[in-house]
């Protein structure tokens, strides 16, 4: 079929209607039916030199799996994806495809690109629905190694590195400071976007490869990195970027001001939305969320579902500059969240009881581009305005948690707190210690963390063969 004869638009994703979904925490995007998936898959041109594959950080053979899909070879399709991506059910849901694979799709020039993410999700869900997990049959290397590898952190970087190393025959132990594995996938991204059952399935799968998981185990407190490096033949740090940034403005410690990390942890990890759980959370009629990334969108939409009537997202740049996935912005808008763009909070207002009652903001305009190439916002004098709010959620970014450095020597870091590691191998300044994911890049994406975990596993294998 030629490019011309292909439908210009993609098959829409069935979704829970906005009016309904704001009252529950169930998944918003419901997933393609088999018919929808086959129809969407048939749009793929199966390019000889597929650009989409280059756009994928782990280079999934996209035309390959889509072709198998059109042939209804579902098992083959998922196997093809899993050859390079261990977590397709997750990536199909949360990857920013619009800036990666789908951004390169030839169809995107004249119409909508193939909905690659949705097809990836379909394949993964189809397999899950069948109760299978192809990779369960993963061949674990015959040459079982006596060498032990410690993985610190159980986010996508740590889980991916653990899986790959276990398959190579190493004895792998994951140390996780929280009571549950998954990192941001468990505590950050809400149920309505990424059901926790899926994350747990992936964790169980990795355990089934023989990986030992030690929750409630903080490196830097229970044991130092030095001690860990001594005890294990190699260490991988996938500790993420979990330290919340605050704005440093007046009133930020009033009751009702949350970091997005705290708010989302209470909601997702601790299930504050479920009355069966003891988790406490403060909710108000009016909520202000500060920031423009996925974290801000998730916080705003979670607040709505917890009963807030009005949620304002305050962001200092324009919509174009918002780092959130386009789909999340669209979903947030459909759900009635309002956006106060080119605005920045300057003060949190409180009452006599020390409770938040509002936020004073100032309008911004975009000035000259900064080092990152983005135009930096500057305040417009005299443009102050106030928003009422009983709850304020600050989602302006995070940096790596420095706890890992406690009591240890020899691990170099950047000024911003990220660990310095070689891009290809993840090797750090400390012998035998590798790092990858948000702890190296600063807050990024699930797929880039997985890519780093994969590369580090390969480098660790090479390192251990030599040493």
């Amino acid at each position, binding site marked *: 079929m030629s490019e011309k004869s292909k439908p210009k638009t993609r098959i829409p994703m069935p979704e829970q209607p906005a009016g309904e979904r704001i009252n529950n925490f169930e998944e918003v995007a419901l997933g393609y039916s088999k018919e929808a998936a086959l129809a969407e898959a048939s749009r793929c041109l199966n390019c000889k030199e597929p650009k989409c594959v280059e756009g994928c950080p782990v280079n999934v053979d996209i035309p390959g799996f889509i072709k198998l899909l059109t042939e209804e070879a579902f098992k083959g399709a998922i196997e093809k994806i899993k050859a390079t991506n261990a977590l397709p059910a997750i990536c199909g849901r949360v990857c920013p495809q619009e800036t990666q694979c789908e951004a390169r799709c030839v169809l995107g020039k004249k119409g909508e690109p193939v909905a690659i993410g949705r097809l990836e999700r379909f394949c993964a869900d189809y397999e899950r629905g069948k109760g299978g997990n192809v990779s369960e049959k993963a061949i674990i290397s015959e040459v079982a190694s006596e060498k032990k590898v410690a993985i610190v952190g159980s986010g996508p970087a740590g889980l991916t590195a653990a899986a790959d190393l276990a398959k190579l025959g190493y004895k792998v132990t994951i140390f996780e400071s929280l009571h549950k594995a998954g990192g941001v996938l468990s505590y950050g991204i809400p149920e309505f976007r990424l059901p926790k059952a899926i994350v747990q399935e992936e964790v169980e799968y990795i355990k089934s490869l023989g990986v030992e998981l030690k929750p409630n185990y903080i490196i830097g407190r229970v044991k130092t990195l030095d001690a860990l490096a001594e005890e294990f033949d190699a260490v991988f740090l996938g500790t993420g970027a*979990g330290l919340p940034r605050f704005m440093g403005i007046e009133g930020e*410690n009033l009751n009702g001001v949350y970091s997005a990390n705290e708010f989302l*942890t209470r909601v997702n990890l*601790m299930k504050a939305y479920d009355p069966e759980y*003891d988790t406490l959370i403060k909710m108000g009629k009016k909520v202000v969320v500060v920031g423009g990334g996925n974290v801000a969108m998730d916080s705003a939409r979670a607040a709505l579902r917890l009963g807030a009537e009005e949620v304002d997202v305050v962001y200092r740049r324009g919509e174009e500059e918002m780092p959130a996935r386009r789909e999340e912005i669209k979903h947030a808008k459909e759900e009635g969240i309002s956006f106060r763009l080119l605005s920045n909070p300057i003060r949190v207002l409180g009452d006599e009881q020390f409770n938040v009652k509002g936020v004073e903001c100032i309008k911004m305009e975009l000035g000259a581009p900064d080092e990152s190439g983005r135009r930096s916002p500057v305040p417009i004098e005299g443009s102050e305005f106030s928003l009422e709010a009983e709850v304020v959620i600050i989602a302006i970014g995070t940096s790596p*948690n420095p*706890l890992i450095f406690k009591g240890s020597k020899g691990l170099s870091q950047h000024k911003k707190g990220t660990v310095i590691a070689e891009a290809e191998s993840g090797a750090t300044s400390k012998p035998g210690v590798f790092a990858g994911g948000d702890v190296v890049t600063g807050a990024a994406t699930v797929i880039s963390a997985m890519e780093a975990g994969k590369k580090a596993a390969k480098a660790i294998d090479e390192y251990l063969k030599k040493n």
Partner: protein
Amino acid sequence: MSYKILKKEEVAPAVHRMEINAPDVAKAAKAGQFIILRIDEKGERIPLTIADFNPETGTVAVIFQEMGKTTKQLATLSAGGFIEDFVGPLGTPSDVRKVGTVILVGGGVGVAPIYPQAKAYTAAGNKVISIIGARNKELLLLEKEMREVCSELYIATDDGSKGHHGFVTDIMKEILDSDEKVDRVVIVGPPIMMKVGAGVAAPYDVEILVSLNTIMVDGTGMCGGCRVTVDGETKFTCVDGPEFDARKVDFVELMNRLSMYREEETAAKEKYEHKCKCGLH
């Protein structure tokens, strides 16, 4: 994961001491640190100071008073039972070293965290004068244990049923006014007691430390729920503390923040007590 309760006793009315099997925590623990526990999958995470620890037996003791839903539920567990999650040691250890003479002041359940500090300060070669207090003599904790690890021990009760009739801070002031050369005062107890105590000691030429107990979630610096203002700067109690220079702590903010969930907490406790009465629990 789950952690076995090895021992449990009621050390005062509605105050319990629990020994938990947690070898990794026991091995790493130092005076002044705390743990966070979660009773079961549906429970909240609450911080409790480490009241004692033994690296050889792998046990960690906590002392808690029945207050809200979680501590009431914890009190229903007994030896042989399990706690789902028990993570620690958390927080920066107390700055224990040889300073000379140290006054340790503990009020209410605040006596529990004072005990490992008394042990550590004594072991570091200090003269340790402890002052412990409670509302009445029934509620007084660890008198015998404290006596064994301190050079001097004073007692105060609000109702005068034991020791000095009045506040622990009255005795502290007397010592500070005496010829005794005191190098450091450490105060642990309810925030109001620490605030008052810090105020009383402030005019003297002595270092004053307090150990803060804020609302917490993770205990590793990832949520910021535990933030306090110290010397005009926001600090995270769970990693930067819990011990701070008392003269620099914003106690008013601390007390306000502790009341953040007061209504929700009362409702949860009432619901739980109602359930128990109906025999549903």
